[in-house]
Structures are given as C-alpha cells and as structure tokens.
C-alpha cells in the first residue's frame, strides 16, 4: 500500500502547486482591487483546501501556514484588517513560504520556516493594533530573498522522444569514431573516443530514465475497472496489485495499456466463474485476480493471474482443427504449451457469447501484435480448474535494445536479446533431417532448426529447408529464438558479440520487407539488419508449408 501513499503525495503536490500559482495570481489582483469580493472568496477557498489537504496528508507546517493565511484573509474579508502595503508584503511572503514548503516535500530538504515571517503572520492574525511599525521593522530580513522556481518541470513526451532519437544518432557516431580510432592506432584519439563512449552511455541512460513512469499510474486504474466489469458480469472479484513502484518507459506503458485492459476484461468475463459455480467447485466465492509487475535490468515483467476455470484445452484443440490450423491427429500429440499458442492466432476465439465487456472476435492476437510491436513477449500458462496466467515481458526502452550480432552470407544481422533463448554450437552430424526440416536435440528437447541463408536468400523453387547438404562447414552456430511458445533454431554463418543497438526504421521502399524490424549502423560503418523474430518465425512456417505442398 506504500504506492498508494506515493500516489496521494503526488496528487497533493500537483494540486498544491496549482493552488500556489492561483494564490499568487489572485493576490496580485487583490493588490490592485483590494475590495474584490470574488477574488477574496477564491483565495479563501484555495487556502482552505490547502489547509485541509495538508492536514489530511500530515504536512503540518503547510497546514499551519495555510491556517494563518486563511485567518488573515478572513479578517480582510470581514474588514477587520486593512490590506495595507505592510500586510500585503507579509501575505506575499507567507504564500512564498507555502510554495517553498510544497516544493521541498520531494527534495527531503529540512525547510525551517523563517521565524520572523511566522511572527509577522501571527502579528497580523492576532490583529495587534500597533503592529505596523513592527512589521515594517522586520521586513528588511526578507528583501534579500532569491526568486525560487519549482524543482519539477512538466515535459511533453514528444520532446523526450526527440531527445532519445538524438541520443540514438549520437550512439551510432560514437561507435563509428571508436572503431576508426582503433584502426588508426592514435592513442590520443583512443582516449578521447573511450571518454566519448562513457559520456554517451551516461546520456543514454539519463534520457531513458527521464522517460520512466511508475507502473502504478496504470495499475491503480484497474480496481475501479474490475469492479465495474465484475458488477456487470455478476462476478465477485478481489484484485491484488503488486509492484506499482516498478518503473517503465512511458510510451511502452501507453502501447500496452489497451492490451492489459483487454486481458483483465477477459479474465473477469471468461476466466473467473460466477460465485455459485465457484462454490460448487469448492473454491472461495470471490475470484482472485492478481496484477503484478517486477523488473530486472533489461525487462519489465507484467503478470496477470486469475484463479478461474483455466483454459479449455479440448475446446482450443477442436477450434484449431475446425479452423484448419492443425490436423486432428497432430492436435492430439501437441503439448499444452503448443495448444495455448493457438490462442494468439489471428481472430482465434472460443468465446460463445458476446458480452458488453468482452466481445467476440477481438482476440488475443491483437494483444500479441501490440506487444510484438514494441519488441516484447506475451506468454500464457493455464491449468484447467485452477486458473490462467498471462505474462508480458516488455523492454525497458523502445529505441535501444540489447541484441546479438551475427553474419549470414557476408551480411550483418542483429536479433533482439528478448527473443533469444540460447546460443549453441552443434556438429552437423547432430542435426537430423526429418520430413522437410532439420531437427536438433537440445538437452532432450527436439527443436526445429533452419539455415538462415537458405530461408532468406534462396528462391522458393530451389529452397530445401530440410537439406543438410546446404550447410557450410562442420560446426554449426545456432541461435535459438522463441516466439509464441515455439522455439526455432537459426543457423548462422558467424556469431559476433552482444551489443546495445539503436534500431532505426527502414526507409521506403525497403520498409515493406517485414522480416526486418529496422536497421542499425555498426561501428565499422556497416549496415546491420535487425531481424524481426515474430515475422521470421511466421515466414518460416509459410515456407515450410509451401514446401510440403510442392
């Protein structure tokens, strides 16, 4: 519950700063028109709220100062205090002090209010008759005060996007300079370029950091949403939120907002049973929904778990067979993971009824595509009668990705690390020709492997994906990628290093080749194609089918 407190604090500060600005505006108006009833009422209202809010949240200094100012203004309103120059100055100072206290909430600075100022406020509030002289006397203390601005700035995400793009360009040039300086062997240039490297890296992380927001800003919207759907569906649902303090890139959060909403709706309408059904099964009446987030260095994991009925594997198989995605015989042999991956096929839906919240037709493929588009992964686990868990693995940044570099037919490629499972070197003899494909046995798991050169560069008529004779050399480097619960081994010619790359969109007309997520420039100045794993996997499945039919 700590993060709800954080949210309260943020709301309090944002609103208090708004009040502070409005107070400054109104008191300036009042200086010119001291009798303006409306302005006085507005100032009174703002101070009143500031007092009540700060008292509620426990910022007692702010509530104390607001209270004194509120009292002063009510005296002015009741004509018991003249709006004289001396009084105006003290009130301005008082409002400035409020601003200072508000902005200091977040900076952990111990703000000790100026005792002279507090005394001045007391003098006004207690309406001491001969106070004018005293006020004038102590005013000197405050004339040397500096102009203070808020430590917080609001910034348009567009500006941060631009900044991130510039950092990307800089990273490419940095790598280029580093590479050139190594070639030239100039020591001085080497020192400067390695310094440049570190600074750019710092800059990259700073800009990425500036784009982070708390995932709670999205999570905290769900209790209300879940309640509404549950009410409409006559379900009883308890939603637990975990990890609201985890931070994530704002644009990534934006893109996956609809996906998460979709999954939550599905969980309540289709996943969880009605209270009566649950009781019959010996489960607690109230369905449990857990939305959690955690992060490691590279990724943010968002998990949505329900303790509902779980996926109906038989129904999914039947639907898949009906839709000719698999033959009835093959369907029987599929593992549960393989069965679940049908859920992400375009338009795949087993829902029998259309409800207000989860209509039929908009399937999980929409969610899958949204997550693919930002280079993330969607995974699902389900147990009949026990519930379903969706896991979204999201990158921390869209623009910069950790990637594995390799070479096929003298062209450089990169694969985002989020999709790579492992890298392995196997002897050609350990690859088996099965049907039209090659299979490798990796620790007891049979994995389809494909020679990328054959897949990418050979004409369809000539393509022989299952032919070992097309391979070069004896030892094969295999990058195992994973997409939609399917693993695929990609045989490459040469493996290079892991590296952070800046993915740039392809320019027209190349942007129509959807096998590539974009390009990046290597330090050597060479262009490197970024392989889109989802697209490559789909491309492979199509080619394989074409071969079977040939």
């Amino acid at each position, binding site marked *: 519950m700590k993060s709800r407190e954080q949210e*309260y604090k943020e*709301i309090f500060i944002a609103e208090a700063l708004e009040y502070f600005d409005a107070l400054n505006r109104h008191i300036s108006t009042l200086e010119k028109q001291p009798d303006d009833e409306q302005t006085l009422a507005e100032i009174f209202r703002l101070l009143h709220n500031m007092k*009540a*809010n700060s008292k509620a949240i426990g910022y007692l200094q702010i509530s104390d100062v607001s209270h004194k100012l509120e009292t002063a203004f009510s005296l002015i309103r009741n004509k018991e205090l003249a709006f004289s120059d001396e009084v105006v100055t003290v009130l301005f100072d008082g409002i400035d002090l409020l601003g200072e206290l508000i902005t200091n909430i977040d900076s952990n600075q111990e703000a000790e209010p100026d005792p002279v100022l507090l005394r001045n406020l007391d003098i006004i509030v207690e309406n001491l008759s001969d106070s004018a002289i005293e006020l004038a006397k102590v005013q000197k203390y405050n004339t040397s005060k500096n102009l203070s601005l808020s430590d917080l700035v609001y910034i348009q995400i567009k500006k941060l996007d631009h900044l991130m793009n510039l950092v990307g360009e800089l990273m490419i040039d940095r790598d280029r300079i580093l590479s050139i300086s190594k070639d030239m062997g100039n020591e001085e240039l080497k020192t400067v370029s390695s310094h440049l490297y570190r600074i750019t890296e710092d800059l990259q992380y700073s800009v990425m950091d500036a784009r982070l927001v708390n995932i709670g800003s999205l999570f905290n919207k769900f209790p209300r949403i879940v309640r509404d759907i549950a009410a409409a569906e006559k379900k009883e649902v308890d939603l637990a939120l975990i990890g609201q303090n985890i931070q994530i890139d704002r644009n990534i959060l934006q893109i996956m907002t609809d996906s998460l909403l979709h999954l939550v709706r599905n969980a309540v309408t289709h996943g969880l049973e009605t209270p009566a059904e649950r009781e019959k099964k010996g489960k607690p009446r109230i369905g449990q929904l857990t939305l959690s987030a955690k992060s490691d260095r590279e990724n943010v994991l968002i998990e949505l778990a329900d303790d509902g009925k779980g996926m109906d594997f038989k129904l999914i198989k039947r639907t898949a067979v009906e839709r000719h995605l698999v033959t009835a015989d093959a369907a029987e042999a599929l593992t549960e993971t393989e069965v679940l991956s049908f859920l992400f096929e375009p338009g795949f839906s087993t829902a029998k009824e259309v409800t207000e919240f989860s209509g039929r037709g908009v399937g999980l493929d929409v969610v899958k595509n949204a997550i693919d588009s930002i280079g993330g992964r969607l995974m699902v686990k389900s147990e009949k009668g026990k519930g379903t868990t969706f896991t979204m693995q999201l990158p921390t940044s869209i623009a910069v990705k950790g990637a594995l570099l390799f070479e096929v037919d003298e062209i450089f490629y990169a694969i985002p690390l989020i999709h790579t499972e492992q890298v392995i070197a196997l002897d050609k003899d350990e690859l088996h020709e099965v049907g039209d494909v090659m299979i490798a046995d990796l620790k007891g798991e049979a994995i389809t492997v494909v020679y990328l050169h054959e897949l990418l560069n050979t004409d369809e008529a000539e393509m022989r994906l299952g032919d070992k004779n097309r391979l070069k050399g004896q030892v094969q480097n295999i990058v195992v990628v994973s997409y939609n619960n399917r693993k695929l081994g990609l045989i490459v010619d040469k493996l290079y290093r892991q590296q952070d790359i800046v993915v740039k969109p392809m320019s027209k007309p190349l942007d129509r080749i959807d096998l590539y997520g974009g390009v990046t420039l290597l330090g050597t100045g060479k262009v490197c194609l970024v392989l889109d794993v989802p697209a490559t996997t789909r491309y492979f499945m199509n080619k394989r089918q074409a071969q079977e039919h040939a």
Partner: protein
Amino acid sequence: MKRILIVDDSFYMRTLLKNMLSDAGYEVVGEAPNGQTALELAKETKPDLITLDVILPDNTGLDVLKGIKAEQPDMKVIIVSAVGQEVIVNEAMEYGAKSYIVKPFSEEKVLEVVSKVLAED
C-alpha cells in the same frame, strides 16, 4: 452496491474519499468539482448518497444542498466540512443534510457515517 456521488473542489480530497469508499465496496458514480456539476450529476446519476463539501468555487455547499433537495427531497446528503465551519454545518442539517464529516477525516469515521446514513430509511 450502494452508489455515491462525491462533491469536493479538491482533487486530492476526492481521491481520498473515492478510494476509501471504493475499497469499502461502494460504487462512486461521479465526482463533482463544483456546484454546477454537482447538481447535474445528482440529477443524472441519482445516487443513494452524496458527500458534499461546503466551500465550492461557484456556489456555497448550502446552495447546492438546497438545489438537490428541491429536485430530490429524499436524497441523502452528508456534509464534509473543516473545523470552524460548525455554523454552516448546523444550517445544512436544518436544510435536510443527514450527517457530517469533519476534515481531516479518518477512513473509519467516513465509513461509519456513510453506512449509518445509508442504513436509515
């Protein structure tokens, strides 16, 4: 599920109240930051209960109370005020407010008053 309309000009206060009420299983059907919106939402959402702040930017809470009562005489209204506004609270009770809550309020106090008022006929 009992439906509640929150009237308060402070976003912070509305959020506090909304979370307290939602957590306790009430449905918050609307939030009004001023008197005009309060009157419109009261008519539109026909809640079971309204929490009403006494100082609003466009209108006094008392005027809003009168406006609501003129349209829906049986509407249950709880006044939310701060210390020092006892006079207004007393007047509001005369105009038909059911009870009141004083800021800063505790969750227990809010829920106690709300459930008591909702239980009345």
